[in-house]
């Protein structure tokens, strides 16, 4: 099939270049194209075609090549970090970056797991799709405890853009009216199972300020004609999402924003194009293009445009900026503030608890639901009431295991086999998602000598949990256990792990938004303070991490910034 929108070399000067085709890049490309601008979407990895290239989808384990196993040698050679991601397996591994091609360093004594997806669609193919709005609390917490810089926007500034993107992507959920977790534009929620309804009832009877609400996710629970017309269909509850979903039931760049952008005939896509740096024209003080290394041949080429959006993912975006040095910006483009690369954050996922809910022996459920109940934030609202600053919410679900319940004991034989044929007892699990404070010392830099396959300086990550983060971990584990006790669980097992940052895969910061050009890289419109036609709308822009999954906020900020930029561009004000 001929795809005229795919290019490699070109002399065209585009209205805009968008670097990265993940969640943020897909949204920016769509918005700019729909505003009538010509756009070149630059993706470092290969093309992935929706449906056709979901090679692991729908295959039973016994039908997978090599019976589905990822060989140990392959893991050691290519996936030493990717293997740590819960979604990594033989049916999904091709959507994870080769760690050996793009190595990174961590400062001695620290660790950070950086999970990457280098292909058209980026990590939108393998994200976890939980979609929560941030609230007013989340945009003022930096101001309240003095860590980080004050956000230059508030909830009211982004609220209409949340609505805008939600209507397009499809978010399932229930209108709960909870201040710390504002309602979205919802499709119907996924159902709670019998035990979750029971737990909700007990929890809300015991506490006046705690609620159990259904999770919100970018899945089409009941698609309207709007979505069906896009070729997207209802979620089948297979829980094979990271293999790729031919139903288009969850939002990804490939199922949603990219087709919309292509439809405008304004979009070109350059795959296998690794951006090395931004081309800067000091005379006009504008970014005028990008230097690219071909992903396969390693040849160099340039692409030119009138404005540039960086959406390469948090750390990669700052890597490009730090590597874009000039006489005007000797420490990296748009870094007059000196904070580029700093204030790296992730979410704190180290605390959880599980317990058994007795009874309900004939109750069950059918399908693997793509979300689960949430207990919205209830601590440190308006003032600090806990040992730690900031907040968290609890996420979990109740479920029955298959075959696990017979392991670890001395049973075997016919009775054992009979027991294995039945579902195990009801388990209730809660895991906390906590906010990591922004700290200057948590940062990335470029290694002075080590380079990757494409000759680009390797990233060095120096990031650790703070005392506040560690205290929050302890309190979150207690909160999980306390919640289980409140809903009547027994055999409660509380866990706090010592995992380093990274594996929440919510890395944020390093090119933060802020009010003051002397302490931030971006203004309220994701526009570089220093360079008017350079924008950053991926996780790098975040001034704090809040406690909610961030992708929905990236989408809203991306759409908002793209429309701001398009309007200014048309008025020749960029």
């Amino acid at each position, binding site marked *: 099939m001929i795809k005229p929108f795919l290019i490699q070399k070109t002399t065209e000067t585009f209205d805009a270049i968008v670097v990265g085709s993940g969640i943020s890049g897909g949204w920016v490309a769509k918005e700019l194209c729909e505003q009538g601008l010509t756009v070149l979407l630059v993706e470092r990895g290969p093309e992935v075609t929706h449906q056709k290239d979901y090679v692991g989808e729908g295959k039973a*384990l016994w039908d997978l090549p090599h019976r589905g196993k*990822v060989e140990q*040698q392959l893991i050691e050679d290519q996936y030493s970090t990717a293997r740590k991601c819960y979604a990594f397996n033989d049916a999904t591994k091709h959507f994870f970056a080769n760690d050996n091609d793009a190595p990174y360093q961590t400062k001695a004594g620290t660790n950070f797991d950086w999970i990457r997806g280098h292909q058209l669609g980026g990590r939108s193919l393998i994200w976890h799709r939980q979609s929560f709005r941030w609230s007013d609390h989340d945009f003022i917490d930096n101001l309240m405890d003095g860590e980080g810089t004050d956000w230059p926007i508030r909830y009211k500034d982004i609220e209409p853009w949340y609505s805008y993107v939600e209507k397009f992507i499809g978010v399932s959920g229930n209108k709960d009216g909870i201040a710390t977790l504002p309602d979205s534009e919802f499709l119907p929620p996924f159902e709670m199972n019998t035990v979750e309804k029971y737990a909700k009832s007990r929890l809300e009877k015991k506490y006046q300020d705690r609620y159990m609400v259904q999770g919100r996710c970018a899945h089409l629970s009941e698609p309207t004609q709007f979505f069906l017309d896009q070729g997207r269909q209802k979620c089948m509850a297979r829980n094979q999402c990271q293999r790729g979903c031919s139903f288009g039931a969850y939002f990804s760049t490939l199922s949603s924003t990219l087709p919309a952008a292509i439809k405008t005939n304004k979009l070109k896509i350059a795959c296998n194009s690794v951006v090395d740096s931004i081309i800067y024209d000091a005379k006009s003080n504008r970014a005028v293009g990008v230097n690219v290394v071909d992903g396969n041949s390693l040849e160099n080429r340039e692409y030119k445009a009138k404005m540039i959006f960086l959406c390469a993912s948090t750390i990669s975006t700052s890597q490009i900026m730090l590597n874009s040095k000039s006489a005007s910006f000797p420490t990296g483009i748009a870094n007059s503030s000196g904070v580029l690369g700093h204030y790296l954050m992730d979410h704190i996922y180290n605390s959880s608890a599980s317990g058994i809910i007795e009874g309900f022996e004939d109750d069950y459920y059918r*399908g693997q639901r793509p979300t689960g109940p949430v207990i919205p934030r209830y601590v440190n609202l308006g003032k600090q009431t806990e040992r730690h600053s900031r907040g968290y919410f609890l996420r*979990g679900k109740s479920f029955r295991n298959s075959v696990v319940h017979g392991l670890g004991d001395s049973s075997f034989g016919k009775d054992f086999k009979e027991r294995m*044929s039945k579902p195990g007892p009801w388990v209730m699990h809660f895991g906390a998602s906590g906010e990591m404070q922004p700290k200057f010392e948590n940062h990335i830099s470029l290694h002075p000598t080590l380079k990757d396959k494409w000759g680009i300086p390797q990233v060095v990550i120096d990031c650790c949990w703070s005392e506040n983060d560690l205290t929050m971990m302890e309190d979150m584990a207690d909160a999980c256990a306390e919640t289980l006790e409140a809903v009547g669980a027994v055999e409660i097992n509380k866990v706090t792990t010592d995992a380093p940052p990274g594996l929440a895969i919510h890395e944020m910061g390093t090119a933060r938004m802020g009010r003051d050009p002397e302490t931030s890289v971006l203004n309220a419109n994701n526009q570089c303070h220093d360079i008017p036609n350079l924008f950053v709308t991926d996780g790098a822009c975040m001034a704090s991490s809040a406690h909610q999954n961030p992708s929905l906020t990236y989408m809203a900020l991306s759409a908002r910034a793209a429309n701001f930029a398009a309007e200014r561009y048309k008025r020749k004000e960029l």
Partner: protein
Amino acid sequence: MNKNNLFDSSRREFLITLTAVCGSLLSPSVLAGDFASLSRNKGGTIKAGKILSLAQMKALAAISDIIIPKTDTASASEVDVHGVIDNELAFCSDRADAAKFINQLDRFCILTKADTNKPFEALNQNKRLKCTEALAKGSTPYKDVDKQFFIQLKALIVMAYYTSEEGASKALVYDPIPGGYKGDFKVSDNQGKAFSIFHY
């Protein structure tokens, strides 16, 4: 994205439990369901494996059938559980962990033969049962270390069996396209069985 992925908690719980009983022998990708069998021996002839000897394969197949015997569904060896485990040890395990497991299997074979004068697979059904009971309890001629081996062995056999087509779709209910989530469902409406969770 990952996440100590709490919304995958049933799957995560499953992986955590298996990791607890198997240690590091099962890699995350195996635990995610990527179990494999390269050599089916449907004719009933057991062959030397990729890493296990013929004798080791015979012992493994025999004890697999004691742990998961034939009922109205196939036994473990009938779905080549021993081949799957051999493949796992050969290609998909940390080398040191695989070597340790093989040493423990050898120790089981040696202790059994010393106690009964026969290899495990040459024993009659009653004696196989008694040996397996002793192994599971770590009682004579076995020790506590062998009890731990039993737990690990059983976990591998369970994984291999219930990820086979027979185990996943006949011993359990295989439901690859549920068509949506239904929160109010009954075990009694599901043939009294659990769903296979290995299909994602």
